[in-house]
C-alpha cells in the first residue's frame, strides 16, 4: 500500500463503520478492528526502508500550479509513531468492544476513533508541514467528538469544549509558526526544513517562529500552563483516554518537538523554553497527581508529568537525551495505556472512580490487580520494568548536563523530587485501590471482567516486562531507527542495560523509590496542605475567567461597532472601507490622471448626464416622498441604460431597460404596503456626518473611476473576440461569453436567481399585510381597478411583446439579445397582464407552476452542460452547426442555445415568481377598513398612533 493510501484507509473505514453499525452493534467493532489491521498490513511492507536507513517520500500531485502536493514521508520516527498509533489502536478497539454499554452507539464511537486514527497517522507521516497542520487540527476535532461521546453529560461537553479551545488555539499558533518556518526555510517540505537547521536558527524570525511552534506543541501535549484541559478531558470514555490521552494525541506535541529537533534545537531559546516548561510540567504534574481522588484524574496528572519529562529531555537537546526521550515515549505509551484500561475495568466493575470509595479490590479482582500493579510499578520506575530504564537514562542526562555549573545540582535534585512524587502517586494507585480496607458504598459487587477485555492489558503489561528485562532484544531495533529519524543521522552510542554499575542515576532512582515510599507513608499532612491551597492552584477558574473576559471583550466590541443599529454599523463599515481604500494610496506617488486619450463631450451625452444628475440629486432631496423618489430612481436607471448604449454595450442597455421596468413595478407593489412618507428622524449632527461620509465615498469612487478611465490597459478581450465565432459559433461576444466561455459562472448566477425567487416565495408565504384605504394625501383609491383601455391595450400588446422576446432570444447568439434579456422582456409582458387584468383573470389563463418552470430552466442549463461530458468534452463545452430548413433557409443552431433557453426559463420563472406572489398578497390582504390613516398597521395592529404624528405633521 502507498503511504497516502495508508493514511486514507482509516478515514474510509470511519464511513464504513457507520454503515455496518446499522446491521448490528458488534459489526462496527469488527469493522474497526479489520480496518486497523488492514492499515497495519499496508504499512509494514514499507517499514523496510527506514530500517535500511532510507526515508520514503511519496507525493500525490494536487495543485501543481501553486506547488501544492500531498506529500507523505516515512522515516524511523514516523514509523515508530505510526506503529504506536495502529498497535495501541488495535488494542483499544478490542477493549472498547467490551467497555461500551448496551445503550452506547458503537458506530459513532468507532467512527470517531478511526477518524482520529487517520488524523494521527497523517501527523506521523506528513512531509508537508501545512498538510501536517491540517491533520493536527483534525485530531483536535475528532478528539472533541470522542471526549463529548456521552453527549448527555455536561462535564463531557465542557471538557470537550475546553480541549478544543486550548488545542485549537495552539493549532492556530502553530499555523503561524509553520508559515514563518516555511518562509525561513523557503519550503514547506520537512526534508528541506530539516536540512536547513543552521539557516533557520540564524534567522532573525527564529525566536517568534519558535514561540509559535512551541505554543502549538505545548497546548497539544498538555504542558504547563496549558495542562488543565487534560484532566477535564477525563470525562471521555476510558478507551478514549487510554488511546488519545496517554498513547497518541498528547504525544503529538512531543512528536513535533522530535520531528523538528534537527531544525530548531540547539539554541539557548530552545533549551530554556522547552527545558523550562518541561521541568515545571514534570514537577507540577507529579505533585498534583498524588492528591487526585479520581482514578483517572491521577492518571491524567501523571501523564502531564511524564509528558513534561519527555519535553525536558528534548529541551536538554543532546543526542542521548533524544534517545531517552523517544524511549520514554514508547514506555509511557505502554504502561499508561494499560493503566487507563485497568482504571476503565475498575470503573466498569465498581461503578466508581473515587479512590476514597474503591478500596480493597484485590479480593474481588486479583488478576486485574496484578496487571495494574505491574503497570504502576513501571510508572514508578521500578527495576526490571521498562519505566525504570528510560527514567534512569533521564536521570543520567540531567546529571550530565548539570555537571559544569555551580548551581548544577538543582536540576538533578528537582527531577529526583519529581521521581519521589511519581513513586508516591503510583503507590497510592496500588494501595488505595487494591488494599486499604474494604470498598465503601459500592452499588454492585465487583468481579473480574470478561476474558477478552483483559487481553489488551495483558499484552501491554507483558511488553512492559519484556522491555524492562531484555531491552536490547526487544525495543532496541525500533528505538535506534526512530532516533535516527529524530536526529536525521546515526543514533549515538547508547547502552540499554539494566545494570550500569553504581552511578549517580542509580542513586537518584533509589532516592526516588525510598523517598516515594516515605512520602506516601507520611501523606496525611501533605493532603491537608494541598486541600487548604487547592483553590489557589487550580487553573480552570483562571481559564474560565479568561474565556469570560474574551466573551465580554467581543461583546463590548460588537456593541461599540454595532450598538443594535444598522445605521451605525453601516456607517462604520463604509468608513472603514473608505479608510482602507485610502490607505492604499498614501505614499504612492502615481498621478491621479493617466495618459489615455480622452473622448470629447457631445451635447446629447451632456444632456443625458445632466438629466441623470438632476434625477439622482432630486431622489435624495425628495426621498421622504417615497413615490417621487422611486420615480426619480427609475429615471436614473433609464439614463443608465442610455449610458450603456452610448458606450457600445447594447446588450447591457437592453438588460438594464428590462430590469428597470421590472424593478420599478416591484418597488411600486411593495410601496403600497409601506408608509408613503419617511419621517425625519436623524439629528442634525447625524445628518451632517452622513452627508460627509456620502460625499467622501462619492468623491473616492469618482477619483478611482477617473484614475482608471484615463489610463491605458491590457485586456484579455482579444482571446474572446478571436475565438467567439470559430469557437463558440456566435458573433455577439458578450452572449458567447455568458453561455459558452464562462457558462459555468452563468449557471451559478441563474442558480442564485432561482434561489432568490424561492427565498422570496418562502418569505411571502402566509404574509398578511393590509393595504391602506387611501393614498398619502388621504384620497380614496380609484374604484376602477382594471381600466378597460389599459386591459385591452395590454392584451393586444402581449403577442407582440412575446414575439419580440422570441426574436431577442433567437438572435442573441449573434446580435444583441439572448436568454437574460428575452426572459426579462417576457416577464415584463406577462406582468403587464397581471397589472392590467388582475391576478385572478391572468392566473386563470396562465396556470403555470412557476417553481417547476424555474426548476426546468436550471435542469435544461445543467443537462446541456453535462451533455458535453457524455461526448468526452469538459463540462459546458458547446458545439454548433448549420442546418437548412425548408422555406426559412439556412439556420445556425448552437448547443449553447439550449443552455440559453435554460437561462431564459429561470429568468422568466424567478421574476414572475417574485412579482406575482407579491401581487397575490395584495389579493389576500384587502385594504384595512379602519379609520383613514396613512399607516394602517399601527391602527389595525392595535399599536398606538402617536408614532405617526410626526409624519402627519410633515405631510401638512
Amino acid at each position, binding site marked *: 500500500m502507498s503511504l497516502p493510501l495508508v493514511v486514507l484507509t482509516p478515514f474510509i473505514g470511519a464511513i464504513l463503520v457507520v454503515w455496518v453499525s446499522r446491521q448490528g452493534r458488534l459489526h462496527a467493532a469488527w469493522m474497526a478492528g479489520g480496518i486497523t489491521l488492514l492499515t497495519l498490513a499496508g504499512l509494514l511492507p514499507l517499514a523496510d526502508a527506514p530500517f535500511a536507513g532510507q526515508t520514503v517520500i511519496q507525493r500525490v500531485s494536487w495543485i501543481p500550479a501553486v506547488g501544492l502536493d500531498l506529500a507523505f514521508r516515512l522515516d524511523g520516527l514516523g514509523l515508530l509513531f505510526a506503529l504506536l498509533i495502529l498497535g495501541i489502536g488495535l488494542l483499544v478497539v478490542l477493549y472498547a468492544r467490551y467497555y461500551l454499554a448496551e445503550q452506547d452507539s458503537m458506530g459513532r464511537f468507532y467512527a470517531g476513533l478511526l477518524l482520529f486514527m487517520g488524523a494521527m497517522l497523517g501527523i506521523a507521516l506528513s512531509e508537508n508541514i501545512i498538510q501536517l497542520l491540517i491533520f493536527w487540527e483534525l485530531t483536535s476535532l475528532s478528539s472533541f467528538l470522542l471526549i463529548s461521546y456521552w453527549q448527555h453529560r455536561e462535564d463531557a461537553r465542557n471538557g470537550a469544549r475546553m480541549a478544543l479551545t486550548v488545542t485549537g488555539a495552539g493549532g492556530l499558533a502553530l499555523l503561524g509558526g509553520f508559515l514563518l518556518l516555511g518562509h525561513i526555510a523557503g519550503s514547506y517540505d520537512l526534508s528541506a526544513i530539516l536540512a536547513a537547521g543552521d539557516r533557520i536558527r540564524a534567522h532573525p524570525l527564529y525566536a517568534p517562529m519558535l514561540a509559535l511552534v512551541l505554543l502549538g506543541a505545548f497546548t497539544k501535549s498538555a504542558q504547563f500552563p496549558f495542562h488543565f484541559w487534560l484532566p477535564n478531558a477525563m470525562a471521555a470514555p476510558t478507551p478514549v483516554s487510554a488511546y488519545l490521552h496517554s498513547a497518541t494525541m498528547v504525544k503529538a506535541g512531543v512528536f513535533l518537538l522530535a520531528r523538528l529537533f534537527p531544525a530548531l534545537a540547539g539554541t539557548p531559546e530552545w533549551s530554556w523554553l522547552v527545558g523550562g516548561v518541561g521541568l515545571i510540567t514534570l514537577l507540577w504534574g507529579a505533585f498534583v497527581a498524588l492528591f487526585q481522588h479520581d482514578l483517572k484524574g491521577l492518571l491524567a496528572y501523571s501523564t502531564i508529568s511524564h509528558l513534561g519529562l519527555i519535553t525536558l529531555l528534548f529541551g536538554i537537546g543532546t543526542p542521548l537525551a533524544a534517545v531517552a526521550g523517544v524511549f520514554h515515549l514508547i514506555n509511557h505509551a505502554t504502561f499508561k495505556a494499560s493503566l487507563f484500561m485497568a482504571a476503565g475495568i475498575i470503573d466498569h466493575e465498581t461503578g466508581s472512580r473515587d479512590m476514597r470509595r474503591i478500596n480493597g479490590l484485590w479480593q474481588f479482582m486479583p488478576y486485574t490487580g496484578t496487571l495494574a500493579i505491574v503497570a504502576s510499578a513501571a510508572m514508578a520506575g521500578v527495576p526490571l520494568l521498562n519505566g525504570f530504564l528510560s527514567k534512569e537514562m533521564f536521570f543520567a542526562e540531567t546529571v550530565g548536563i548539570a555537571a559544569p555549573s555551580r548551581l548544577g545540582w538543582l536540576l538533578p535534585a528537582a527531577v529526583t523530587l519529581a521521581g519521589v512524587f511519581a513513586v508516591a502517586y503510583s503507590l497510592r494507585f496500588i494501595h488505595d485501590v487494591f488494599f486499604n480496607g474494604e470498598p465503601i458504598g459500592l452499588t454492585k459487587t465487583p468481579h473480574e471482567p470478561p476474558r477478552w477485555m483483559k487481553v489488551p492489558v495483558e499484552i501491554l503489561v507483558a511488553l512492559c516486562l519484556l522491555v524492562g528485562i531484555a531491552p536490547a532484544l526487544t525495543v532496541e531495533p525500533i528505538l535506534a531507527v526512530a532516533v535516527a529519524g529524530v536526529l536525521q543521522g546515526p543514533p549515538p552510542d547508547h547502552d540499554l542495560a539494566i545494570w550500569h554499575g553504581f552511578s549517580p542515576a542509580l542513586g537518584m532512582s533509589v532516592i526516588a523509590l525510598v523517598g516515594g515510599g516515605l512520602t506516601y507513608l507520611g501523606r496525611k499532612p501533605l493532603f491537608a496542605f494541598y486541600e487548604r491551597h487547592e483553590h489557589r492552584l487550580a487553573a480552570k477558574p483562571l481559564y474560565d475567567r479568561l474565556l469570560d473576559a474574551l466573551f465580554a471583550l467581543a461583546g463590548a466590541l460588537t456593541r461599540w461597532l454595532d450598538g443594535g443599529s444598522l445605521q451605525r454599523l*453601516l456607517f462604520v463599515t463604509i468608513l472603514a472601507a473608505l479608510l482602507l481604500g485610502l490607505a492604499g494610496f498614501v505614499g504612492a506617488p502615481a498621478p491621479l490622471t493617466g495618459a489615455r486619450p480622452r473622448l470629447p463631450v457631445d451635447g446629447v451625452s451632456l444632456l443625458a448626464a445632466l438629466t441623470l444628475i438632476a434625477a439622482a440629486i432630486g431622489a435624495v432631496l425628495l426621498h421622504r416622498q417615497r413615490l417621487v423618489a422611486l420615480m426619480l430612481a427609475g429615471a436614473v436607471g433609464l439614463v443608465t441604460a442610455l449610458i450603456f448604449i452610448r458606450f457600445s454595450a447594447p446588450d447591457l442597455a437592453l438588460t438594464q431597460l428590462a430590469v428597470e421596468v421590472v424593478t420599478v413595478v416591484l418597488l411600486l407593489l411593495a410601496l403600497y404596503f409601506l408608509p408613503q412618507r419617511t419621517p425625519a428622524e436623524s439629528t442634525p449632527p447625524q445628518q451632517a456626518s452622513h452627508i460627509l461620509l456620502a460625499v467622501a465615498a462619492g468623491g473616492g469612487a469618482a477619483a478611482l473611476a*477617473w484614475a482608471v478611465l484615463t489610463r491605458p490597459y491590457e485586456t484579455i478581450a482579444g482571446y474572446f473576440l478571436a475565438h467567439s465565432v470559430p469557437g463558440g459559433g456566435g458573433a455577439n461576444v458578450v452572449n458567447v461569453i455568458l453561455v459558452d466561455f464562462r457558462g459555468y459562472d452563468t449557471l451559478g448566477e441563474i442558480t442564485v436567481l432561482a434561489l432568490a425567487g424561492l427565498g422570496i416565495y418562502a418569505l411571502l408565504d402566509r404574509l398578511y399585510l393590509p393595504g391602506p384605504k387611501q393614498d398619502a394625501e388621504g384620497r380614496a383609491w380609484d374604484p376602477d381597478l382594471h381600466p378597460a383601455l389599459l386591459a385591452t391595450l395590454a392584451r393586444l400588446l402581449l403577442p407582440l411583446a412575446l414575439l419580440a422576446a422570441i426574436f431577442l432570444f433567437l438572435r442573441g447568439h449573434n446580435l444583441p439579445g439572448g436568454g*437574460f434579456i428575452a426572459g426579462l422582456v417576457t416577464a415584463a409582458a406577462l406582468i403587464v397582464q397581471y397589472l392590467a387584468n388582475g391576478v385572478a383573470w391572468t392566473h386563470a389563463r396562465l396556470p403555470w407552476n412557476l417553481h417547476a418552470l424555474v426548476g426546468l430552466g436550471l435542469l435544461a442549463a445543467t443537462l446541456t452542460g453535462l451533455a458535453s461530458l457524455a461526448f468526452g468534452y469538459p463540462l459546458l463545452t458547446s458545439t454548433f452547426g448549420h442546418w437548412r430548413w425548408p422555406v426559412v433557409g439556412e439556420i445556425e443552431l448552437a448547443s449553447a442555445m439550449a443552455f440559453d433557453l435554460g437561462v431564459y426559463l429561470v429568468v422568466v420563472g424567478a421574476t414572475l415568481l417574485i412579482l406575482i406572489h407579491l401581487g397575490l398578497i395584495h389579493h389576500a390582504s384587502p385594504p384595512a377598513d379602519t379609520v383613514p390613516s396613512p399607516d394602517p398597521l399601527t391602527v389595525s395592529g392595535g399599536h398606538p398612533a402617536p408614532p405617526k404624528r410626526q409624519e402627519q405633521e410633515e405631510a401638512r
Partner: protein
Amino acid sequence: MEALMALIIGLLTGCGVYLVLRARTFPVVLGLTFLSYAVNLFLFAMGRLTIGQPPVIAAQAAGYADPVPQALVLTAIVIGFAMTAFVIVLALKARAELGNDHVDGKQEP
C-alpha cells in the same frame, strides 16, 4: 466624457451611501439600487469608454469594445434585481412582523 462618467459614478455612489444610511427600509432599498447603478457603471468603466464599437463580430468593424466587463455587468444587473427584490420583500416581512419599517425594527421614541 471620462470626467462626466467619473462624476456620474461618484454622484450615484454618494446618493447611494446617503440613502442606505437612512433609518427606514424603503430609502435603504432605494439606496441599494443607486449603489447597484454605481457599481455596475464602475465595473463597466473598467473596460474604458468606447463609442460605436459594440462587441459584435462584423467584417467591417473598426474595433470592438471590451466584452469582458460587459458580460460581467450583464449578470450583475440581473443579480442586482434579485437582490433588490429580496431586500424589499424582507422589508415587507419586517413590517408585517414588527409593525414598523424602521431598519432596526424599533418603534421611534
